């Protein structure tokens, strides 16, 4: 039996929708510190049931492996660490207005969980002993890379001609991660359609 609470996509939508709402409120200057951080922390809680639902979904689809379980656990760690690091960096910048080394430190801080994410991806591919799952993840990675290249090119030209605002480089990883999620979703759907034929 399936209901939204068991769907990782539903939890991802809660998280993504929450972040979009916060971005919109920020854009309209309708929210101030510390309520934006409170909302970020609140919506980030959706990552925990999302990870659990992803594990359950993978197990029910016959795609669970020890390496995938470790990867999902690491994904939860970096996601939560990213929210915390970003919160600390933004709060420090807004309240202390640091200069020099401290500014460098808080500017680098949110990058560290993202580097951990890249390492976790590499570890998964190295640790996965199931060659089909490894190939599937590599394929999802290629879908993600294709999406990132497409979006970057499209946005880059729109930006060059002054049609859209500047996009920061750090947006690359979220776009790639969305592509990875979409890739996995497409491949999971294909697997489910063919299951036990």
């Amino acid at each position: 039996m399936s209901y939204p609470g068991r769907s990782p996509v539903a939890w991802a939508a809660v998280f993504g929708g929450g972040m979009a709402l916060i971005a919109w409120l920020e854009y309209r200057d309708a929210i101030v510190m510390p309520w934006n951080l409170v909302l970020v922390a609140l919506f980030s809680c959706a990552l925990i049931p999302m990870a659990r639902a992803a594990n359950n979904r993978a197990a029910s689809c016959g795609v669970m492996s020890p390496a995938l379980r470790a990867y999902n656990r690491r994904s939860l760690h970096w996601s939560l660490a990213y929210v915390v690091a970003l919160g600390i960096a933004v709060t420090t910048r807004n309240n202390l207005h640091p200069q020099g080394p401290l500014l460098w430190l808080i500017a680098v801080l949110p990058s560290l969980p993202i580097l951990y994410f890249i390492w976790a991806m590499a570890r998964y591919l190295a640790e996965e002993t199931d060659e089909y799952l490894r190939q599937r993840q590599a394929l999802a990675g290629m879908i993600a890379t294709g999406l990132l290249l497409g979006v970057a090119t499209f946005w880059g030209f729109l930006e060059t001609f002054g049609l859209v605002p500047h996009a920061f480089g750090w947006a690359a990883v979220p776009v790639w991660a969305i592509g990875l999620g979409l890739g996995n979703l497409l491949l999971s759907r294909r697997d489910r359609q063919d299951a036990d034929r």
Partner: protein
Amino acid sequence: MNNRLKVLRAERGWSQQDLAERLEVSRQSVNAIETGKYDPSLPLAFRIADLFELAIEQVFLRD
């Protein structure tokens, strides 16, 4: 590449999950190989053939 995995499995009364556990791979891997969506590596193909006590060419067939 075609294969006789489904027939061989049925002859032994094994589900995809049973075969997956014997091969120490995911059920989805067995399904992908069985439906011809994924061609296994040579080491895995040999493991499958060994499990059924057959030669590799008796399990995997040319298109």
